[in-house]
């Protein structure tokens, strides 16, 4: 069969054709919303109209069979209207209150994982984890993001819709320091790291790589030309294993199963509520990759979360709690060892040293 005529530079379809009539009618005119349970909320417009949102987690990696199933559920209970959140949750947009419970029953019957909502009145829950491609199909991955998300969410499942936390907790997983996700500003996040310098495949460099751009891409200036070999040299003392050179030059493989693993960072946020957005900071510099269920990672994440739950004031995020009690107290409470890796020696090091004699024992 002949292919249809292609069109270029048309951009995405306009959203007006994808939003339910109640949103069309009340666009920009909403009054307030209320969280009704861990996975259901209602938005009320100034006109009095209402829309109910039912949220459930997805693993982000979806088969077409599952997407069709989601489409069928949306068709049956909410006129076919749904959306996804930036944290990979599915949101069914229900205009008829009578359909909310039948939809919840149908989701329960199919074992959908409903939850991920929270606020100050209802109580806060964790929501789905922002993450990257990992071993599913990325060349620079030094762990599997989907696997880590699965085991962390399994472990913290109760916090998705039953148990509450003092404030919002946003989790993220990045499978390398490229961080295709907001790991650098999350409450608790996993980032996979290398610990050894790239290997140089001298015979391939001249065919696969542009030497000047490979030299220029190194943030610490560790790469220099090796004219005799028509290749490059790496100063091992300067390399900090970021892997940027491997993305520029495929002849510099850095993947190393014995030394790759993950680090845990904490205390970041993106909202401006109460205090400015914050970067996540290093808590655990290295945990070996231990697939398929990474038990050392899930127990470390739980340890941070539980210390936060028992110590934080209502509404405080992980980073606000840690800054109030002090990082020295945080390491004492959680028992994570403090190492040389925790002291910054890169571009903003001097901003992180303690320039005061006031601290806690």
């Amino acid at each position, binding site marked *: 069969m002949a*292919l*249809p005529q292609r*069109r*270029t*530079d048309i*951009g*995405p*379809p306009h*959203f007006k054709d994808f*939003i339910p009539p109640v949103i069309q009618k009340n666009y*920009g005119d*909403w009054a*307030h919303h209320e969280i009704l349970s861990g996975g259901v909320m209602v938005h009320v417009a100034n006109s009095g109209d209402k829309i109910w949102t039912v949220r459930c*987690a*997805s693993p*982000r*990696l*979806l*088969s*077409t*069979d*599952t997407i069709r199933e989601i*489409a*069928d559920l949306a*068709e049956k209970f909410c006129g*076919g209207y*749904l959306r*996804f959140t*930036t944290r990979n949750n*599915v949101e069914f947009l229900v205009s008829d209150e009578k359909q909310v419970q039948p939809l919840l029953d149908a989701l329960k019957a199919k074992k959908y*994982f409903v939850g991920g909502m929270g606020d*100050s009145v209802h109580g806060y829950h964790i929501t789905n984890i*922002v993450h990257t491609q990992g*071993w599913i*199909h990325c*060349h620079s991955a030094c762990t599997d993001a989907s696997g880590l*998300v*699965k085991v962390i*969410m399994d472990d913290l499942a109760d916090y998705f819709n039953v148990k509450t936390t003092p404030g919002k907790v946003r989790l993220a997983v990045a499978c390398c320091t490229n961080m*295709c996700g907001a*790991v*650098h500003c999350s409450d608790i996040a996993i980032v996979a790291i290398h610990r050894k310098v790239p290997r140089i495949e001298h015979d391939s460099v001249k065919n696969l790589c542009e030497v000047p*751009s490979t030299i*220029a*891409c190194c*943030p610490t200036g560790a790469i220099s030309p090796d004219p005799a070999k028509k290749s490059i040299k790496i100063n091992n003392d300067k390399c900090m294993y*970021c892997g*940027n050179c491997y993305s*520029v030059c*495929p002849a510099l493989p850095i993947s190393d*199963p014995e030394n790759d693993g993950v680090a845990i960072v904490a205390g970041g946020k993106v*909202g*401006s*509520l*109460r*205090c400015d957005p914050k*970067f996540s900071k290093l808590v655990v510099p290295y945990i070996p990759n231990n697939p398929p*269920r990474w038990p050392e990672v899930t127990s470390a994440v739980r340890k941070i979360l539980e210390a936060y739950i028992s110590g934080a004031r*209502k*509404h405080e995020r992980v980073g606000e709690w840690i800054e109030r009690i002090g990082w020295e107290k945080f390491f004492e409470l959680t028992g994570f060892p403090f190492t040389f890796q925790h002291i910054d020696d890169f571009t903003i090091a001097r901003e992180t040293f303690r320039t005061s004699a006031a601290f806690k024992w």
Partner: protein
Amino acid sequence: MPKKYDTPLLDELEKGAFPSFVTEIKKAAKKTEMANDELGVLEKCYRERKTHWKHGGIVGVRGYGGGVIGRYSDVPEEFPNVAHFHTVRINSVSGLFYKASDLRTVCDIWDKYGSGLTNFHGSTGDMVLLGTTTDKLEPIFAEFSSRGWDLGGSGSALRTPSCCVGAARCEWANIDTMGITYAITQEFQDEMHRPAFPYKFKFKTAGCACDCIASIARADCSIIGTWKGSIAVDQKEVKAYESKGMNIQAEIVDMCPTSCISYDGKALKIDDANCSRCMHCISKMGKALKGTGEKGATILIGSKAPFVVGATLSWVIVPFIKMEPPYTDFFDLIRKMWEWWDEHGKNRERIGELIIRRGMREFLEYIGLDPLPQMVKEPRRDPFWFWTDEDLTK
């Protein structure tokens, strides 16, 4: 019959309460050889604790320089059906809204030409179709574009703009995030599809300072809704929150970062002139408090992940702009920025890194903005600053 792979490690990831991505791959593996080999190679990755994917080559559709990510297996003999396993990025609808019928069409096309595996969504917000071969790219593009869909961005280009749900379903939205995102995407189609920048450029639009799209952490240009005016207080609703158990003093008054709220048990008062519009009080008692007055956005520039010299958060360059159609002033400002970046940016240098390298003064003068205290947390501490000849005669 497709080859059956033993997957003892991945099978462990089908246990537990959270939905399993392994189950998803297995569902697709029943239908396509490609998904079946993906399952096999992933088990190998788990067994060997390393990735088996190689760099992308240059693949794409005619007339475009992006939107498709080339991906190849490093063990093609063992898993021939994923020897080529390219990703197609489809520009999603603003706010990630869908209708069931459109989702089914996407599935029909993808079952016909690809692995049947997807990401809803990639980190930037594209609908991501995982796994196809070079010969299928033109047919996929024809099928999608003839139905009104286009490819997203990749490489050194404008990436697919994204936003929070905004005015569609949120009372806190100060700007029409979805309308703005659609307008930006349409205005800069060429910049998206034909990579000509020093490196990637991302727009993210948030309706308020809650920033549910994380624009301040991961967009070269963050557009964050705000207002100029007072916070209207409904004292009856304040009382209602109190009677439902909220400790107004501890949860609202004491947590206000500018100490501009007071409560005497009868009335909640806000010193609006000293409010920084952080959204804490409004987000905790939404029925009682509302921002009023002129609505618009703050424009911030420069955030990115750690590569290469450390992560940055976006910083303020325009404290307030109206952000109403046709957005002419905003587009002019963006074109000026890109012109300067294009002139001075090094290969793989983001615009924020360039501003840090060459200084805010040069950047602001080029795009025609005056210095303002809202742009900085504090003035400089060092005594080493520049004077131009013109400064000396002022």
